[in-house]
């Protein structure tokens, strides 16, 4: 299984029935492919849609029904559309149960940097600062390392997204939770040892006595 699929399947296990969820561009988008049967999740696109459905079949796209990347999507029965003020009222106002975003770096306390590399790449923060600041639960989906360097760092070298720490980081190696300013190794992926995770991680991790394997199969509870 490739890294992206591992990450997406694991994060899909965070979904609960009735949740309002925002998925960022990239790996987070893949989470929508693994919603467990029997639960209904509302996916929000911050461009003004709740009830985002799959990519339309050939010939059935509409240019003004798109995701936040501008790509055509469909709308499920019960969808709603609204202006950008309502969209960010939902995000900033605490109505969003879960946001899944990409990350460039996460520090030992869970602080996230994901919107620019000074002098190199300045995409802008888009909705990321509001999402991290306002969502009830923030999950980061990212590869554990980039060019051999850990993305889970002691201190951020890139500009901060929000002073609100993220709750969970899921990589192809591990699931790491951030609570009370401390990073805890919650789960390790199949075929990966605790030592390998620690070696690939710059930040100090608290390692419980027993670290379970990362489950990837769909949750069956509602």
């Amino acid at each position, binding site marked *: 299984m490739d890294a992206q699929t591992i990450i997406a399947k694991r994060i899909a296990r965070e979904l609960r029935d009735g949740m309002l969820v925002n998925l960022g561009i990239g790996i987070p988008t893949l989470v929508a492919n693994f919603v467990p049967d029997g639960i209904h999740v509302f996916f929000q696109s911050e461009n003004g*849609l709740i009830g985002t459905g799959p990519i339309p079949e050939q010939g059935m796209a509409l240019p003004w029904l798109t995701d936040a990347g501008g790509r055509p999507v469909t709308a499920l029965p*019960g969808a709603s559309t609204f202006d950008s003020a309502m969209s960010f009222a939902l995000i900033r106002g605490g109505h969003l149960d879960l946001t899944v975003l990409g990350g460039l770096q996460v520090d030992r306390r869970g602080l996230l940097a994901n919107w620019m590399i000074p002098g190199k790449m300045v995409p802008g923060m888009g909705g990321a600062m509001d999402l991290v600041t306002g969502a009830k639960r923030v999950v980061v989906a990212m590869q554990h390392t980039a060019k051999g360097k850990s993305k889970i760092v002691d201190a951020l070298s890139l500009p901060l997204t929000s002073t609100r720490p993220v709750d969970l980081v899921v990589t192809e190696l591990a699931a790491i939770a951030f609570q009370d300013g401390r990073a805890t190794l919650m789960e390790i992926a199949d075929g990966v040892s605790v030592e390998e995770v620690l070696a690939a991680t710059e930040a100090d991790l608290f390692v419980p006595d027993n670290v379970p394997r990362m489950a990837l199969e769909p949750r069956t509870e509602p």
Partner: protein
Amino acid sequence: MKTISLHDAVAIIPDGASLMIGGFMGVGTPEAVIDEILRQKKSHLTVIANDTASPGIGIGKLVTARLLSKVIVSHIGLNPETQQQMMAGDLQVDLVPQGTLVERIRAGGCGLGGILTPTGIGTVVEEGKSKITVNGREYLLEVALRADFALIHAFLADYIGNLAYALTARNFNPLMALATDTVIANADNIVPVGVVAPDHVVTPAPVVDYLIAKA
């Protein structure tokens, strides 16, 4: 979202709770919910709403039954009982300019700490508030307002909780539906999911906690 009986919806509300109640002179107020609050004799309530309607209508019924200890409203002129209880010291009435009230509620629902408005500057409304100058003009800082429950009246709901409103019964309802911990909606009509066009949904389903089932 849970579908719930009228009785059970109101039973969730404890005495002393703060309620945002939609409506403008009773139009767009969930009248059945008001009647059930009377029947269950909830007391010491704080109500945030545009007005206290008139005796016998909407929030006016709660005033007459003396179930309220405080109201935050823009207007009480058409309910003499509100004025009498206020003058007698039995009911605390905080009067807020209507445009400020709606923005304070909206701010509460949108995660904003407050807004800067020119309304009220130089009047009794400014007492105790910060004044902030932006681009040479003075504004009052008015802070966000939230409550425990929102009592919402809609014209249409679908079975997952999307709401649409009719004409002037919309007023404060969609704003209050964002600004409380628990949102209870009562709709004139409940329709199958998919029947309301996405562009015509005003309150998206995920913000509604309870939809009152048709009796």
